């Protein structure tokens, strides 16, 4: 069970959170202008890297705020958490 630091509440058990998938996927401004393929890319296609991953979490049983986390999908270590409005942190590589 992960120990996740909510940017507002501090470290809490994973069971207080719900997962929101990959972060920084922006909803297209004009969906009608997109081809089926482009829309499907927004809708369905997600990265699944072995290693660094930027993902969304909701502190569902706490402050009910969404935030982003930078997590390693191999070691499960969470390197940083940041607010939705913050830019993506730079990777090491």
């Amino acid at each position, binding site marked *: *069970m992960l*120990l996740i630091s909510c940017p507002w509440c501090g470290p809490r058990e994973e069971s207080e959170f719900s997962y929101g998938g990959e972060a920084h996927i922006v909803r297209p401004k004009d969906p009608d202008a997109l081809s*089926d393929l482009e*829309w499907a890319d927004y809708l369905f296609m997600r990265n699944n890297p072995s290693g660094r991953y930027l993902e969304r979490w*909701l502190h569902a049983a706490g402050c009910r*705020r969404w935030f982003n986390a930078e997590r390693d999908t191999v*070691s*499960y270590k969470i390197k940083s958490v940041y607010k939705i409005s913050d830019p993506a942190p730079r990777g090491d590589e």
Partner: protein
Amino acid sequence: MKSPLDSSRSQPYRLATGGRIDRAKPLTFTFNGKRLQGYQGDTVASALLANGVRLVGRSFKYHRPRGIVGSGPEEPNAILQVGRGALTTPNLQATEVELAEGLQAGSVNCWPSVEHDIGAINGLFSRFLPPGFYYKTFMWPSRMWKTYERFIRKAAGLGVSPKEPDPDRYDRMNTHCDVLVVGGGPAGLAAALEAGRAGARVILADERRELGGSLLDGRDEIDGAPALEWVNAASRELASMKEVRLLLRSTVFGYYDHNFLTVLQRLSTDSTSISRPLIKERVWRVRAKQVVLATGAIERPLVFPNNDRPGVMLASAVSAYVNRYAVAPGSRPLVFTNNDSAYRTVLDLAEAGIPVQAVVDVRPEPNGPLPSRVKDMGIPVIGGHVIVDVKGTKRVKGVEIMSVDASGERVEGRRRSIRCDLVAVSGGWNPTVHLHCQSGGGTRYDGEKGCFVPDAPAQEERSAGSSKGSFALGDCLGEGLEVGAEAARAAGFGDGRVSTPVPTVEDRAEEPLKAMWVAPSRRPPVREHKQFVDMQEDVTAGDIVLAAREGYDSMQLLNRYTTLGFGTDQGKLGNVNGMGVLANHLGADIESVGTITFRPPYTSVTFGAIAGREIGGLLDPVRKTAIHRWHIEHRAVMEDVGQWKRPWYYPQPGESMEDAVNRECMAARNAVALLDQSTLGKIDVQGPDAAEFLNRVYTNNWLKLGIGRARYGLMLSEDGMVMDDGVVIRHGEQHFYLTTTTGGAASVFSWLERWLQTEWPELEVYLTSVTERWSTIALVGPHSRKLLQDLDSDINFEKSSFPFMSIHSGSLAGFPVQVMRVSFSGELAFEINIESDLALAMWQALMKAGEEYDITPYGTEAMHVLRAEKGFIIVGQDTDGSMTPVDMGMGWLLSKDKDYLGKRSLSRSDCVRKDRKQLVGLLSTDGTTILPEGTQLVDDPSAGIPVPISGHVTSSYASACLGHPIALALVKAGRARKGSIIYAALRDGRHVKAEIVSPVFYDPQGERQRV
């Protein structure tokens, strides 16, 4: 020579002196119905051995007689059923159960008795139970499994579950610490001391009932005094530290992510007490900054023909029984070893006055200090020999040995017999790396030590002592101190330096072992007598070789194929030998044949402990409406809808469910009826951008909805599928009130929050869940308006001033209310929203005023019938997450002049397919059959397998007002097929003919709700 055994006849194998038992507290217990005696401080295993009980169970597959092998959690054979009735517990290891007065224990896995076991016939026909038997049976031909299973399950069952509820309680504790030390042996004690001295908050957990670990089993000395004096001093010092918590009888059974570990603490060992309930076990959920693994090592058996005979034991277990429990597991022991540590057992036996017949050592010339000492005592040491057979069936009577040739791989010369009643074996030691591996750490093979040792840690964790492969006592103490200081420093305490000198220990040097996974014998393994690798799963060296020949040549495959390591002991004794046998056969390095996967739990955990207090009424919250009490008082049959309790129907005396539902439906259609609809989700939405926000999340347009008006809204997920629906009211320019389905209340709220926070933070909108604050009473039927007009109210209920889909606030019978004119039944209806603390009184006022109209309360079943008659869908029943609004015939709700969530998906090629399933009505042509919900629909009842499926039934009811059954269904291209016939395929093979019709069965023009 004077016998070292106790003169008391009740425990013939009890030594006269010594042991950590309380001879002043004799305990009586029963084993397989026989009354026996032991002492406080015994385990069931030590007490059985003290009584001379050697045969304790039968093996899983072949039902071979088996005896006690170990002294701890590694025990594979002595698996017991303990206690009776509701308190019975299956599959406990005799080595792990503390003896208690009146304890009742019995063997599992044998019938009719352990002495005379019918399943032993499997042993005679063992060639019919080859490795992979279960596997092959599952694979082919699968239809035969049903036949085998009945026979195998009965023969193979491991214990029985209690039939009554468990009267005991199980607790759970969540805690944090700086340093969690696992294991209270020399290394763990030293680590806890150093971490505690540095000021860290320490938890020290040990599975035994007292600290000391391996020191309890031996006769070591520390600082020139018996080691247990050092243990006592360490215990006292730890107990004096305020930030140190000692957990005894506590097994750390799981190591998960981010240094989260679970500990099972056994609080009550009393299985007979009548003062119930008591707290039996507690699971500690520990989040540790740092972890020290001082989990010790488990001795590895040697594999040789008939090595499973009762009386073949681990050398370390023999020492433990002699030293800790003052029990002689035999009177004429023989020791078989490939290393020096077993010579300590020889010395322990000699010290206790038990004459060792001989030491058989695989190594040609064992000459280290320990073997030399044994030789000096006149005990025969036979080097370069192995046991090639064990005599005796229900107990060891002797062994046959042969010498090993120069290659070390074959035996030669003549067989020689030695009489003995106990064979103490040692094949080296396996560090207990289970938790290290569970945490994500790997292992590597240390050729010199002949074992797998932990590799680099994957989490904040350090191993010390035997669990790291450092078996010498001095090393355990030294490493423990170091690691304790380091762990404390890493957690922010102290400078990482050890504060005290390492205690002095006289460690006798040990010569290297000769690693041996299976002893050379007269025949190749597949033809040899049973050389058991995993006793609990009855896997032999021959089975492993056979499996490898069939192509299962890596550990991951081999485990599954042979079930090696699949027993309740999880292969603590057998896994490494199994790897070695496989490596031998393949001519490969042991490291190259794969790895053993260690999964939690380390030892068995009861379901009670896992469930904790979350049982019965505490399993899940129960939600009741404000009117709940009235429903119960009026004999409503209740239904669970998620966590909610809702009235299902209100039977009158003598009425069946069908009668009651029909009566309730007819009342709503012809008179007046009322429904407690308070479970609907309700969300208050306010803010300058509220209308714009709703415009984005609902398919229809909200900007022009007038204040005081209501509108039905549909929400889609971004893939275009129907997600939720409900009525939305506009209270003000910046104020809306949403209703959601009962089941969707929480998820819709989260969905709205998510979009506001992650995608549209520029919108100023405030959401509040008001589901519990407001109760909703639906007043339904042609007399509903008259009834409301009878009540004292400032609201004009006439159609002209209160049209359909509008809302008025005011006072009704003295209560402040908001009344909405919406209908989920197709009848004239008013929904009364009222603060929940007034809801019951409002309900009662309506019931009283409605008497003259024969007002009828109705439940969820009638509600379903009424809505289905009108073709109103239930999201989640008539939809399943793959249905678009167009599929559901709700295209009229889709705005063309704005974007909304899911809109773009509706024009994806898959969503405009012509053969998508569509909502239709179905009428069985016989006019009587109620099509079961979920029934598959086919066009050709005589079609061969696989039958093409055209759709399925989603809702189906008897309709009292129509006089025949109705159903809603999803049918491929169904709307264009009205009037055509389709067949419902029932489970019993019959096909029922049905006509596809409009889903609106009643009042298709919708006139009744607008009157």
